[in-house]
């Protein structure tokens, strides 16, 4: 371990001294940028790129941005940035501060179009040789986009030198892009054209498709066109495949949000037969609990902010569950067996809860932050997946699984099922049905609270949060079939996917309308949902 460290330090020192030495060599070339007008600048630029030293990159970038000036007093080339009336000067190579200077004391090194092209070419070339793989990759991408024929030579050299496989692939794609669109295409052999289009097709993204389409429709030779057209069709298939997968992912993501929102309802509605219109407000309370927990962490333990969500989960479960138990004990228990009445009473409660939250927290959105491990995204093939969404999908399935286990494998779950199936019998067997009712309703509400924690990450935390989910949740439960958790799972994922697959064609709003109409028609076909109970149990 220690030896490794020492070795690493030695390498660092060597690298540092070598760049210092190179910087010294570059100085005259940088100086030359400032003299001889356009042609002088162009000549110096060419020499700078030939030197192949990445240290020159910031200088050239400054030149490109129009920040490179000549100090009139001594002819030194400096980077000058406007600060008020004057300019702040820095050394282009070392970035050492050189003080301020009035506008009159410096003169801009001007560039024209041909210089501009040269600049981007040399920037591309220099960065292609950078020791940093990340820089090389983005340089290759930049060349791919600019398709600057001047970069071709450097690109060839870079490809020859490149060790990293993926960067080399990116460079080869850039090269193929230049070859196919530039004048060089006419001089290439069929095999070369074929290999270039193959390379592009292998890139497999929309940029490549645009490029290939351009080639196929351009004035290039027939061979090139045919080859490009073939590549276009394979690429289109591939892209359609990834787009479908991406849609599936969005559908899964929306579906898991719906699942989270609906699963608590599946318990209260499906198991207990209570239509809880205040379910959305339980979700909202969960979200506000998250907000309060985060406020606490911000104030008292900012360093542990990333953990706030983990604390918020049990807190939201307890708060929402507690509110649920209070509601059950005070209102719902008088209304068992009268589902439509529970609907009205809980709607009233939802209005009161919304107004209560509005009075306490104000009507505006509250800021709930995302922990670092939930931000960002990664790519998987042609898919872009954000961590936040990924966690919500995982969380939704975890909650679903936990609930399933709780209902099937625990004593509490057994009591719930016993009470659902035959209340007097359960009572006679010593199950305290009133308590089971309260706890079941609390469980459903608590799960809604958990959903609130997750939804606080992707939606506005406002008093109206719950309203947005209540109708969707009911659709999921009714579509899936009441009294069946698997139905809720399938219902949520199906509706989520249908919604996301319709969206590209119909737009978000029309897509949603179509889904609603679909559900209305579906209920006609199967009045009791996807996973309906049959036989004698239905009449009971």
């Amino acid at each position, binding site marked *: 371990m220690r030896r490794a460290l020492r070795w690493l330090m030695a390498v660092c020192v060597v690298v540092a001294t070598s760049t210092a030495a190179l910087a010294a060599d570059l100085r005259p070339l940088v100086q030359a940028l400032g003299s001889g007008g356009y042609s002088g600048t162009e000549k110096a630029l060419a020499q700078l790129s030939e030197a192949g030293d990445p240290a020159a990159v910031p200088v050239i970038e400054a030149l490109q941005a129009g920040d490179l000036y000549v100090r009139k007093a001594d002819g030194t080339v400096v980077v000058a940035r406007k600060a008020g009336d004057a300019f702040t000067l820095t050394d282009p190579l070392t970035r050492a501060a050189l003080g301020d200077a009035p506008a009159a004391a410096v003169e801009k090194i001007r560039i024209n179009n041909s210089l501009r092209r040269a600049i981007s070419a040399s920037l591309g070339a220099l960065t292609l040789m950078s020791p940093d793989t990340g820089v090389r990759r983005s340089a290759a991408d930049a060349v791919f986009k600019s398709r600057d024929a001047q970069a071709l030579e450097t690109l060839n050299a870079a490809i020859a030198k490149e060790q990293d496989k993926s960067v080399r692939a990116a460079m080869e794609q850039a090269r193929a892009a230049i070859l196919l669109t530039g004048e060089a295409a006419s001089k290439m052999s069929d095999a070369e054209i074929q290999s270039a289009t193959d390379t592009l097709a292998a890139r497999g993204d929309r940029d490549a498709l645009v490029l290939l389409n351009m080639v196929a429709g351009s004035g290039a030779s027939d061979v090139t066109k045919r080859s490009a057209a073939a590549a276009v069709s394979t690429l289109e298939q591939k892209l359609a495949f990834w787009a479908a997968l991406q849609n599936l992912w969005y559908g899964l993501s929306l579906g898991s949000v719906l699942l989270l929102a609906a699963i608590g309802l599946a318990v209260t509605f499906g198991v207990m037969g209570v239509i809880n219109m205040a379910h959305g407000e339980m979700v909202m309370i969960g979200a506000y609990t998250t907000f309060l927990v985060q406020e606490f962490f911000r104030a008292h333990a900012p360093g542990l902010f990333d953990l706030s969500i983990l604390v918020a989960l049990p807190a939201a479960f307890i708060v929402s569950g507690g509110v649920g138990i209070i509601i059950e004990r005070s209102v719902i228990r008088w209304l068992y067996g009268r589902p439509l009445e529970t609907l009205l009473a809980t709607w009233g409660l939802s209005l009161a809860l919304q107004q209560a939250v509005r009075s306490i927290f104000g009507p505006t959105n509250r800021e709930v932050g995302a922990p670092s491990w939930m931000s960002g995204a990664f790519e998987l093939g042609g898919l872009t997946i954000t961590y936040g969404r990924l966690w919500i999908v995982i969380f939704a399935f975890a909650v679903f699984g936990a609930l399933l286990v709780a209902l099937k494998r625990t004593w509490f779950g057994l009591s719930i099922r016993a009470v659902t199936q035959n209340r007097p019998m359960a009572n006679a067997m010593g199950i305290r049905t009133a308590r089971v009712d309260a706890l079941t309703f609390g469980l459903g509400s608590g799960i809604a609270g958990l959903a609130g924690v997750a939804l606080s990450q992707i939606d506005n935390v406002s008093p109206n949060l719950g309203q947005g989910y209540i109708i969707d949740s009911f659709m999921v439960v009714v579509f899936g079939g009441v009294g069946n958790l698997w139905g809720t799972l399938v219902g949520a994922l199906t509706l989520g996917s249908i919604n996301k697959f319709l969206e590209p064609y119909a737009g978000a*709003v029309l897509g949603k309308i179509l889904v609603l109409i679909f559900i209305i028609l579906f209920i006609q076909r199967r009045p009791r949902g996807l996973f309906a109970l049959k036989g004698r149990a239905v009449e009971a």
Partner: protein
Amino acid sequence: MLLRFFLMGLDRKAGIVLTILAILAVAVPVMTLWVPADSPFHLSVFTVSLLGKYLCFALLALALDLVWGYCGILSLGHAAFFALGGYAMGMYLMRQIGPRGVYGNPVLPDFMVFLNWKELPWYWLGFDHFWFAALMVLVVPGALAFAFGWFAFRSRVTGVYLSIITQALTFALLLAFFRNDMGFGGNNGLTDFKDILGYDIQADTTRVTLFVATVAALALSYMIASGVIGSKLGKVLVALRDAESRVRFMGYDTESYKLFAWTLSACMAGVAGALYVPQVGIINPSEFAPASSIEAVIWVAVGGRGTLAGGILGAVLVNMGKSYFTGALPELWLFALGGLFVAVTLFLPKGLLGLGAQLKAKLPGRNKTSPLPNAKTADQKGA
């Protein structure tokens, strides 16, 4: 025969309701137009429009009670029929604006000019005639209700499921009417009306006339509803509300009975919406919001479902309360409304009109079961 039909529904309760409505129809115009402004008996035009609004809601509640109270169909989407009737009337009023709009286009309403539309969409044709619009006020909600009910009842969607899909229906319409390219003014809806049948819509006499029209519509609808309920058809409805399959096994095609009541109810709701729009001066998609429909349900619940008059009473009382609270104590309105929902379901399952019966049932000493049939001792009232 029509006369007999109306007479059939006339009982004491109907007499009271119709008398009150008749008094309103006479007293309100007199108090507004002829009693001098400084008299304590003077009614402002504002109050008249407010009363008119309440009575439109009362008509909606009456329609809802017809299906909920007598057929057991708890519609959570009745505001959709109300709003459709309102839009039909709004379209007529829009066409009446003519070249007086901001953009001065003689044919296209302002919002269409704004959206760069070149000609009137086909479904706006004909709405420049009052008779056509009036027909559509009945036909559009009625046809939608018929189609929806035909599918839903035939598939035997009942109870909670039916309630939830009625909610889905109104929610889908809400989303649809929010869209600008639907051609109904999108978010802003239809407004800035100028005149109706050639009369200035802001004029006092017009307002009073609209009020009287509302009273008349309510009275007529009450008589129709009361007649239906009093007929054998009404008895079938009540029977199927409680034991639908039994009615079916007796040979009644319950689907068509429900469809009849449902469609009739939707038409009444449409009329209510059509009278509402000129009196409040605007119709926008928020009328489709599921919350509006649920609020209408509470009016019926407060007054007493299955009583017809209860819906009217509840709608007026709750909306008076709403006007008071939103003016004086806006923070508390949702608490009050929410509390009302809970209190009515818990303590007043039969509503205000059922309060008497509820109290009577609580009194001890009334023997509910009676001895086995014994023709000699029991009373012999003829039927």
